[in-house]
């Protein structure tokens, strides 16, 4: 049953990735990457239970904080003078 939950989380991550690749605006991509990060937190937590090692939760906790900070930092960059003014922008290399 943990496997079912983990599968659902993985499917969601895949859907978020599709949105991140499709764009079209840079904000869509940041939104998708932020969602991907939240799902990563859930993935780590559930995987810890699946493999019987709840110690993974510490990593999930730290990842939740890092994900938030990175999203806000990237947004700060784009809010003031980054590309992204137009409806379509060239690809920004963002990863997570």
């Amino acid at each position: 049953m943990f496997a079912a939950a983990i599968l659902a989380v993985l499917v969601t991550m895949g859907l978020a990735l599709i949105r991140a690749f499709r764009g079209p605006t840079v904000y869509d991509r940041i939104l998708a990457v932020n969602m991907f990060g939240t799902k990563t937190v859930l993935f780590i937590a559930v995987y810890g239970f699946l493999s019987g090692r709840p110690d993974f939760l510490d990593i999930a906790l730290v990842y939740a904080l890092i994900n938030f900070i990175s999203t806000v930092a990237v947004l700060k960059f784009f809010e003031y003078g980054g590309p992204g003014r137009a409806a379509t922008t060239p690809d920004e290399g963002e990863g997570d």
Partner: protein
Amino acid sequence: MAMIVDALSWVFLLTGGFLGVSGGIGILRFPDFFTRLHAAGVTDTLCAALILLGLMMQAGWGLVAVKLAFIILFLSFTGPVAAHALARAALHGGLMPLLHRAEDDPSKS
């Protein structure tokens, strides 16, 4: 009693998974950025909370449950801030929300 908690936790985990997939579908289906923001909100709030609550019930009382509660707390504080920052940055960047009807524009209300 233990069986009820077990069953409830499975229900929570599966509902959470369903909500997550729904949010993923929504982020693909909705027409513009601001509506997609709402779809992402589903996965950030109830989906995450339900999955983590389900895990908490599996873990039982202890340090693990407290850590899971902390993750829920963090996510519920950081989620809206990130969503608000995204919406504000998009507005600032000149992205206009797609509105249902012209009179929904705030210049009137």
